[in-house]
């Protein structure tokens, strides 16, 4: 029974990320700069790399689906989502502090960790954490 429960919990973690909103929440004391990574349905992990998004302290970004990134802030190499934007999958987020980058995301994507710590641009320790919350993906940045 216990094993089954754990298996169910794990399966829910591994559920495909399609039809998932991506929420980014900056509760740190410093403005952060991030990029998000995604792929089209049947595409290759992290084939889409967003341009830089800037989030002030206590700021948030809400992206219902990867198609919204097409217009703001756009993808690098002028790429666009192809096919159903709601079927595109979020893969990772990278934080850049001016000299170093920390990338968090799903396993099997282009990130090697789901959470980590790095100095923010203000010199404080910053946690960057990727988690799955129901159908949604949440990235929390906090000191």
């Amino acid at each position, binding site marked *: 029974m216990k094993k089954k429960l754990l298996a169910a919990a794990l399966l829910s973690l591994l559920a495909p990320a399609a*039809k998932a909103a991506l929420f980014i929440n900056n509760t740190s004391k410093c403005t952060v700069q991030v990029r998000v990574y995604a792929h089209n349905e049947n595409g290759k992990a992290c084939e889409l790399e967003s341009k830089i998004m800037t989030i002030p302290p206590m700021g*948030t970004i809400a992206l219902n689906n990867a198609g919204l990134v097409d217009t703001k802030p756009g993808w690098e190499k002028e790429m666009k989502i192809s096919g159903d934007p709601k079927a595109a999958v979020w893969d990772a987020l990278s934080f850049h502090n001016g000299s170093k980058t920390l990338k968090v995301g799903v396993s099997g994507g282009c990130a090697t960790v789901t959470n980590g710590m790095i100095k923010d641009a203000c010199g404080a320790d910053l946690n960057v954490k990727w988690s799955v*919350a129901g159908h949604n993906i*949440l990235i929390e940045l906090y000191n």
Partner: protein
Amino acid sequence: MKTLLIALLLSLSAIGAKAALFITNNTSCIMIVMIYAHDQNHGTCGLESGRLQINPGGSAAFNNVATINTTNPFWQNGQTATTAGGTTVWGWDAAIVNNGGPMWAQIGNPGSCFPTASVATLNACGTNTVTADWMVMGGNTFIDIN
């Protein structure tokens, strides 16, 4: 392996000083959301927001109750929220989700003004049934409209 699983499960329940509200509209219809919250000056559901429009395939995010002091949909009647005292003092309580028509879902935390977590409304989006869900996960609150 067991340790890994336990660590994984513990990390799921970790609660920090973060309690944002995230709203997602996965339907093909415009949804209107009104948000209820509390802080040190307002009891449970004492703060009531204006009407927040969320378009089909749209989402919204609020870092904390004071965020709505300065951003749409604002608190009604000139109310001002504060995060003084931290997340043990302020928090999100409930919401009304409607589409201007047959849908009127009242959802929220147990013990709040709308203690039901999930409400399904028939034919709320054309011929489609719409479900509004209120979920608290990892200290954050999610309203999913599907």
